[in-house]
């Protein structure tokens, strides 16, 4: 165990605020302090960045470029760089070409060269096959959903923002569900799985559409695997759930916070005092340590 004094020092060195690390092994779930986790962290497997919302300029954060830059500086200052970056969508605020161009220019400053991106609903308001896909559509042949293997982990990128359910929940649609079943079939249950999509893949709050229509069916396909991590953004705050061997995790935004479920008329930008904002923005990183996948959330302050 690390002494509290050392923990504080370590946090000061990292230049980040309080973070929590979650470890999952054989369905047992435990939390560690971020400072302890750093001691034998090894090389992070990936970084999750989400909801950069380039183009947003309202009161909740008039400088989303500035906060993304600070996020990138924080990541670049990590002693060991992650192997790859997962962007869980809402790269842009209004699907504009100029917003995507600015985002790409900023994100290219990351020392991590491999980035995988799924669209958020803000990225595809102009429909399929346009600005988002012109930039990020290549690995999926413009479908948006695809899978790949890296460092022994099977990664699955899903799109749940282009087939909304009538009740407002996200949806994959029949073609993508059939593809997912096929992609996971015959895969060894011992291979760690990371699934990432923009909207939550489990229902957090149905009145605001915070969930995915096929969520139960997707969880059913994942249950037989020994280690599953399901990542999303969309709700601009950390919410986690563990179900058997599946860890569900939503990341913070780098742009602005949103209210907690049901607090107010809808899931719009939340205006907070300027001093509080950096503590509500940030990224998540994951490490594989002794075959365990661990997630760490770091805030800008």
């Amino acid at each position: 165990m690390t002494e509290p004094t050392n923990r504080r020092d370590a946090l000061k060195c990292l230049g980040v605020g309080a973070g929590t690390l979650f470890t999952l092994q054989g369905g047992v779930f435990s939390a560690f302090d971020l400072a302890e986790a750093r001691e034998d962290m090894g090389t992070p497997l990936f970084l999750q960045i989400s909801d950069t919302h380039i183009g947003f300029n309202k009161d909740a954060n008039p400088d989303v470029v500035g906060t993304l830059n600070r996020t990138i500086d924080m990541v670049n200052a990590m002693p060991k760089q992650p192997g790859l970056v997962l962007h869980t969508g809402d790269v842009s605020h209004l699907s504009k070409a100029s917003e995507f161009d600015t985002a790409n220019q900023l994100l290219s400053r990351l020392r991590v060269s491999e980035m995988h991106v799924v669209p958020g609903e803000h990225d595809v308001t102009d429909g399929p096959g346009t600005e988002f896909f012109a930039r990020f559509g290549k690995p999926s042949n413009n479908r948006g959903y695809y899978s790949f293997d890296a460092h022994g982990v099977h990664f699955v990128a899903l799109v749940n923002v282009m087939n909304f359910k009538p009740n407002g929940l996200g949806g994959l649609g029949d073609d993508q569900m059939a593809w997912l079943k096929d992609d996971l079939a015959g895969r060894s249950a011992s291979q760690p799985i990371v699934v990432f999509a923009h909207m939550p893949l489990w229902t957090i709050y149905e009145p605001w559409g915070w969930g995915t229509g096929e969520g139960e069916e997707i969880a059913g396909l994942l249950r037989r695997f020994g280690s599953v991590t399901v990542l999303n953004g969309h709700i601009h705050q950390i919410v986690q759930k563990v179900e058997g061997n599946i860890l569900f995790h939503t990341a913070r935004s780098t742009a602005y916070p949103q209210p907690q479920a049901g607090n107010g008329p809808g899931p719009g930008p939340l205006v907070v005092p300027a001093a509080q904002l950096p503590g509500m923005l940030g990224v998540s990183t994951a490490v594989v340590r002794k075959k365990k996948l661990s997630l760490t959330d770091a805030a800008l302050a």
Partner: protein
Amino acid sequence: MKYGILAFVLLVTPLAAPAAHAADAMVVLKNFDFSPMDVTVSPGSTVTWKNMDGEPHTVASADGLFRSPALDQNDTYQFKFDKPGVYKYICSIHPKMRATITVK
């Protein structure tokens, strides 16, 4: 008498113009709702939507007849309805937001 008629025409014409536009309608998008949710206009009328929320919304008809780009706060979108009918539409970003334009 002649001048009297002329004066009458001059007076009535400017009043008649706004009367023709009175069929046009305005819908605001506020607190994740369209308001009013049901609007009835006559053929040839233009409907204007204005987003008052800090969150972007769109105006997208169920049959694909009209679809706005993402509307930021205070952005507007207009569509002219020529044919009678009942046009259902949603916000494609928040599909629980539903409303109807009736043209008759």
